[in-house]
């Protein structure tokens, strides 16, 4: 967006959320180390390395669960609003894990530590001997890039589609981390139960994402597309100040809103972070994204000044008491007056 940048957009809710997050992280690390110290052969350094690593992967599971959970239940949307801080903290904890592991296991030899970690042992040609630390390094680099570009400045600089694509690489990081932990456990820590916990986590995340996908599809209203136009049904079937969504045969999902001025349609994807605008509502006469509260004029698709973001509009008509929306979006910036609903 084009508003005035500030270092961190903290407010009362975010302070509260970040406070809980820090307490939970310290609690996790302290419990992990204290419980580990009960083992006779325990080593504090190794416990710290594993504690940071475990904490990072637990946090990554939470991060990846928030998106689908917010789609399945509105109660989780506040977590979505705060997800950015969680991502930065996860990357920093991952960095602590990686840095400590690099120093402890590879920092005291004659070979440089990174070379030792990714090429000093194992065999890339044999799956079970694959150097698992290289996968951890890949995941860490991705998480660090995401954390480093989490500020709105980067969203503005890289533009939303590039920024979003960059941040979708969190799934690559997750896959690399699953490989990192699975191989590390198989090679050096058999019988620790980590593999079972990881499998439960991966299956749960997959299930949540599938459930969210099905819920997203089920939100579409029943419609029929005839040539260039899609029948949306009676105007009153659209809840006041809310939207129904339809998906054209080709192209992006369309959100059709009804408000006091009439019916308008826009592309249902927020230009901020691809949030589902069709699940938002009209607030102060503006379409409001449910994810981060970004707003757009229903008739122009433009964000209110001083913001400069826009989403595409769609042509709407009411014929024989039924709403029709044109399947193809307008050229960006094309205004479309709301079509009045006459009873």
């Amino acid at each position, binding site marked *: 967006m*084009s*508003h*005035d*940048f*500030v*270092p*961190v957009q903290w407010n009362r809710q975010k302070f509260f959320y970040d406070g809980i997050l820090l307490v939970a992280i310290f609690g996790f690390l302290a419990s992990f180390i204290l419980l580990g110290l009960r083992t006779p052969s325990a080593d504090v350094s190794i416990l710290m390395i594993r504690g940071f690593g475990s904490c990072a992967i637990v946090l990554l599971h939470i991060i990846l669960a928030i998106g689908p959970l917010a789609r399945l239940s509105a109660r989780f949307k506040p977590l979505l609003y705060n997800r950015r801080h969680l991502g930065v903290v996860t990357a920093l904890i991952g960095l602590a894990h990686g840095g400590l592991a690099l120093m402890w296991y590879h920092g005291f030899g004659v*070979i*440089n530590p*990174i*070379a*030792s970690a*990714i*090429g*000093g042992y194992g*065999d*890339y040609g044999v799956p079970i001997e694959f150097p698992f630390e290289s996968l951890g390094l890949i995941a860490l680099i991705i998480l*660090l*890039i995401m*954390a*480093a*570009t989490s*500020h709105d*400045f*980067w969203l*503005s*600089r*890289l533009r939303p589609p590039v920024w979003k694509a960059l941040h979708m690489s969190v799934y690559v990081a997750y896959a690399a981390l699953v490989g990192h932990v699975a191989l590390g456990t198989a090679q050096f820590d058999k019988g620790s139960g980590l593999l079972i916990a990881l499998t439960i986590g991966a299956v749960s995340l997959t299930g949540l994402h599938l459930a969210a996908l099905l819920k997203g599809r089920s939100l579409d209203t029943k419609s029929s597309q005839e040539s260039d136009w899609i029948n949306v049904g009676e105007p009153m079937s659209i809840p006041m100040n809310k939207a129904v969504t339809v998906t054209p045969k080709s192209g992006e999902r369309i959100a059709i809103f009804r408000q006091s001025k009439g019916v308008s349609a826009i592309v249902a994807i927020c230009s901020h972070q691809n949030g589902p605008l069709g699940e938002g509502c009209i607030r102060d006469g503006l379409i409001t994204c449910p994810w981060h509260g970004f707003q757009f004029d229903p008739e122009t698709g433009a964000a209110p000044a001083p913001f400069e973001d826009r989403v595409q509009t769609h042509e709407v008509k009411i014929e024989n008491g039924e709403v029709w929306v044109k399947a193809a979006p307008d050229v960006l910036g094309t205004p479309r007056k709301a079509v009045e609903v006459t009873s």
Partner: protein
Amino acid sequence: MLNIAQYISYGLGGYVLIGLVFALYFVTRGVRNEAIAGKSLILRILLLPGAVLLWPVLLKARS
């Protein structure tokens, strides 16, 4: 394998080093985005890691 790993590690180190030099220039003098020009030191420090990691993207955008 160790030789390749060493080249990779030197490559990573070189990339970050160039990034650091570029990022220092970018956040102090090079940034042309009006929304960020003249902003607080904390904000510039927060943008530094991104500039270190994405310096080729920023360099390309400036050329």
